[in-house]
């Protein structure tokens, strides 16, 4: 299928998602509220800690809010575009409904990942953006178009990493029967993306900064707005994005070969 075909397919999915959201309005409002509340919880934590201290790892309050906003933005985008699709993938593999995706005339990974768009998460993207804009103003920054493009690119790489980690955990269902706990593991891991890189020392530095891509996804974009373009940091981010996408898609493809459907 040519690229334009995929785009048209995705737009059709988007339209379907919008119709669905309008059918279940209360549901849409409730889930948008859920995410809004959780963002509020994190914001409150930062506010309370900064009412007792002036900096954490050398980051002052508005800098920390920028980091938090960036982390939220990436997470909301992940939730909006991919979360329920990949979550359902695990369930479908177990039940055998996954056959349905394989029978479709397109790349299975694309079909699996883009079926639904959660518009409640997309609504909260604007909340994350507002927090980022507030922090940028507080910091007195005036990013130009180039800076914004770099920031956008960095967030995109961060999203690619988040997507890969989620795909990787969901793909494990090809081998194990139950992987429900792993999704909780994803949330535990993303907590670390709300912390500045400077606070990680010793073993925590090795694990969360270097081995797992928890810190790089939020710190590099936030640094791009704070200090401008840093080639080393960008190489690190783009390199890890490429690596994690490669690992996740390889595991997915290998899992696909193992998949033998389920009798019904």
């Amino acid at each position: 299928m040519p690229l334009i075909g995929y785009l048209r397919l995705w737009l059709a999915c988007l339209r379907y998602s919008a119709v669905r959201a309008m059918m279940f309005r209360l549901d849409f409002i409730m889930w948008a509220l859920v995410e809004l509340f959780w963002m509020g919880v994190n914001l409150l934590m930062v506010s309370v800690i900064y009412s007792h201290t002036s900096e954490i790892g050398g980051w002052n309050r508005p800098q920390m809010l920028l980091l938090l906003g960036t982390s939220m933005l990436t997470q909301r985008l992940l939730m909006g575009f991919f979360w329920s699709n990949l979550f359902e993938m695990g369930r479908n593999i177990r039940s055998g409904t996954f056959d349905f995706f394989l029978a479709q005339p397109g790349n299975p990974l694309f079909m699996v990942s883009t079926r639904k768009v959660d518009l409640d998460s997309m609504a909260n993207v604007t909340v994350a953006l507002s927090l980022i804009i507030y922090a940028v103003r507080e910091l007195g920054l005036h990013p130009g178009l180039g800076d914004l493009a770099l920031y956008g690119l960095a967030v995109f790489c961060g999203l690619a990493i988040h997507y890969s980690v989620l795909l990787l955990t969901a793909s494990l269902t090809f081998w194990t029967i139950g992987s429900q706990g792993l999704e909780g593991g994803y949330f535990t891991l993303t907590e670390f993306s709300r912390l500045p890189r400077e606070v990680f020392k010793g073993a925590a530095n090795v694990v969360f900064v270097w081995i797992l891509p928890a810190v790089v996804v939020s710190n590099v974009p936030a640094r791009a707005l704070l200090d401008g373009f840093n080639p080393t940091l960008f190489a690190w981010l783009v390199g890890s994005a490429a690596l994690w996408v490669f690992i996740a898609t390889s595991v997915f493809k290998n899992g696909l070969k193992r998949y033998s459907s389920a009798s019904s």
Partner: protein
Amino acid sequence: MSVLAKYRYVFLTGLQSSLVYRWNFAARSAFSLVHLSFVFILWGAAYRGQTDIGGFNLAQTLTYFLAMLVIQFFISAQNEDYQIGEDIRNGMINQFLLKPIDYYAYRLTLFFSARLVTGCLALLPIALAYPLFADTLSLPSDPWRLLYGAPALLLSALIQFSIAYIFGLLAFWFLEIQSFIILSLALETVLGGQMFPLDLLPGWTFRLSQFLPYYYQMYFPTAILTGRLDQAQAAEGLIVQLVWLGILYGVGRLLWTRGLRRHTAVGG
């Protein structure tokens, strides 16, 4: 069959069915250690350059979070709300309407048996990791703290269960209750003191939080045991806690009778 014997069987069955999921619980407890390392890193960094935040040193604050983590496995409602909602949706409650067994007491008994299992299993990974953070802890040794802490823990467990019960009963009115549950979880997380010790809030907000049920879910027993509340505050808290338990129990009963009127007993 005497009432006690009846619920003793429920308790034993609950123990057995919880033990089936022992690896899930152990894995969840191991994940919670990862969360604990997040807490230690964050607060360790916040304390850098100062010895005191809100009148407590780093060791006291870390002890608070560790104690809360352990207590959580023993007293907090986990998926009771969801299970109750499922019972209603699937028509499983029909059998309780016909048998001489009280649904609230039945669920509560299952809750206690499940917490006994999750609590003991959670202790395992935490005990293994204990040498890593043993030096950073500081627990007060006043005997009165245990005397007040024990009933506070029991009442907290009952409050946790009653709130979960109420949310589960919403399934009488709503098709999908998961969003209500997660929404309430966000409130519980912050107002129950899991994100930060509530005493770090500005004075009047802290005072206000003491009149909300969330305060008595986690923060109150943890704060008594880890030295963040004095004796007078603990005594006052126990009374408010009892009042809240009464209110929540009453609301639960009311929703149950009202809900049954709407119930159409599908399936069974």
